């Protein structure tokens, strides 16, 4: 029984990893790179209320 479980574990692992890779390839084809990389750091709630005193200044 344990030998059978070993084969099942290999099979399930391969199936899940193949699905992940196939999905990633599909997403890379369907969406342009600019969209996929468009995430911005931070959270709206804090960005909206970030500065308490006066105007926030650009730190760059």
């Amino acid at each position, binding site marked *: 029984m344990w030998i059978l479980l070993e084969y099942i574990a290999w099979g399930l692992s391969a199936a899940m990893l193949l699905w992940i890779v196939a999905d990633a390839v599909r997403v890379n084809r369907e969406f342009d790179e600019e969209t996929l990389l468009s995430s911005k750091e931070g959270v709206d709630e804090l960005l909206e209320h970030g500065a308490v005193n*006066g105007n926030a200044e650009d730190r760059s």
Partner: protein
Amino acid sequence: MSDQTASQTGAGSGQERIGLLRVLGPAHVWALGVGIVLVGEFMGWNFSVGKGGAYGALIACWVIGLLYTCVAMIDSEVTSTVAAAGGQYAQAKHIMGPLMAFNVGLYLVMAYTMLEAADALIVGDLLMILAEQTGYDALDPKPFVVLVISFLAFLNYRGVFMTLSLNFIITAAAFVSIVILFVGVQPWNPGAILKHSELLTDLPYGWIGVIASFQFGIWYYLGIEGTCQAAEEVRSPSRSLPLGTMTGIITLLIAATLTWYVCTGLIPWEYLGQATVPLYDAARMTGSTVLQVFLFVGTLFAATASANGCINDASRAWFSMGRDRYMPQWFGAVHPRYRTPFRSIIFLIPIAVSFAFTGLLDQVITFSILSGLLGYTFMPINMILFRRKWPLGSIKRGYVHPFHPMPAIVLMILCITTFFATYLGFGLQLLAMMAFYVVVSIWFVKHRYKYVRRADQFTMNWPKPVGY
């Protein structure tokens, strides 16, 4: 389909944006932090008994508990303000600068990926024990190690809500198994099952043994700081992060104390200090099959929850570094449907499997702990600079920790002490790890930093820091 999905996830500011999904609550934050750590109650902490005896391990449990309470307090304040994926990496970037941020980001990725590999190894070892008990002593753990990593990566790939909801269930179940064991040994009836009066001894190696035991006391709590990685995916970071983190450290302090109490009352310190799965062994000592089954399942769940949380945290740290171009920007991509950092998740799978296939559980765990310890050492400096550059009232804080700067000072002293303790047992590994970070720092300064968009990486809408 792509247009529809992209527009659904757009930020509405003219440019279509895909960000991480904000769906988590305090319970998920608790599940992430405690889930990563709780496996340390089921194994590892007991090596502190071997170094310092039972009482030495209790001192380590509480002293290191104090260290992590300081970590939780400091993290809660800074993260409730710097609420971005990457956790301490994002904190370091905004408060201390790029080089520190690069190092902290690497500490996080290394610590979590190695811990994930160790957790998967533990699941494999547990199944080997089970197979041996059923009469099969030739089980190959590799397919099960790969299955654990693959399944959890699959889960993480498909969304954070389901991932951390599962973590909440299995972490809570593992914690309940410790409580059931505690009740099962009848603590109200000393001497019946628990034999503390016979088993507890003086410090076998004196106070130097107690100091040496600190490095293994870390196992009780290693990873609670991982709650910060959820900062960009919680609905209300200023409320959820402090609540999840502080309830998490309270849970761990309770679990650690219960674990020490039960194990030292059932197993002589000479054996306890070498056991592989001490809580499971304690359940076996009671002679109760029911408790044995509970603790076996609890250990399995704890290791799985830890690996699950580690995949979540390592991928967020790597994703954040990619987004800021500290690493190739390619890793900063978000899945348009599942809203997860899918490329970072995929990239870290073979690395975790490689660590796991070495089979060197103790070495992998040691490097994970050392990376974590380096990260804790940065925190007090970070906290003092944070309060100095942006004093109370200058920016909105979701949580303000009391008694500043005491937690920072205590944390720094305890980190230095624990480094000394680690040097006693793993001096070579410590020096190798330090050399690794020095080399990659030189690489970052000389080669990588020229690719970083210096203005874009600072996103917080804060006033200029005091003195600048």
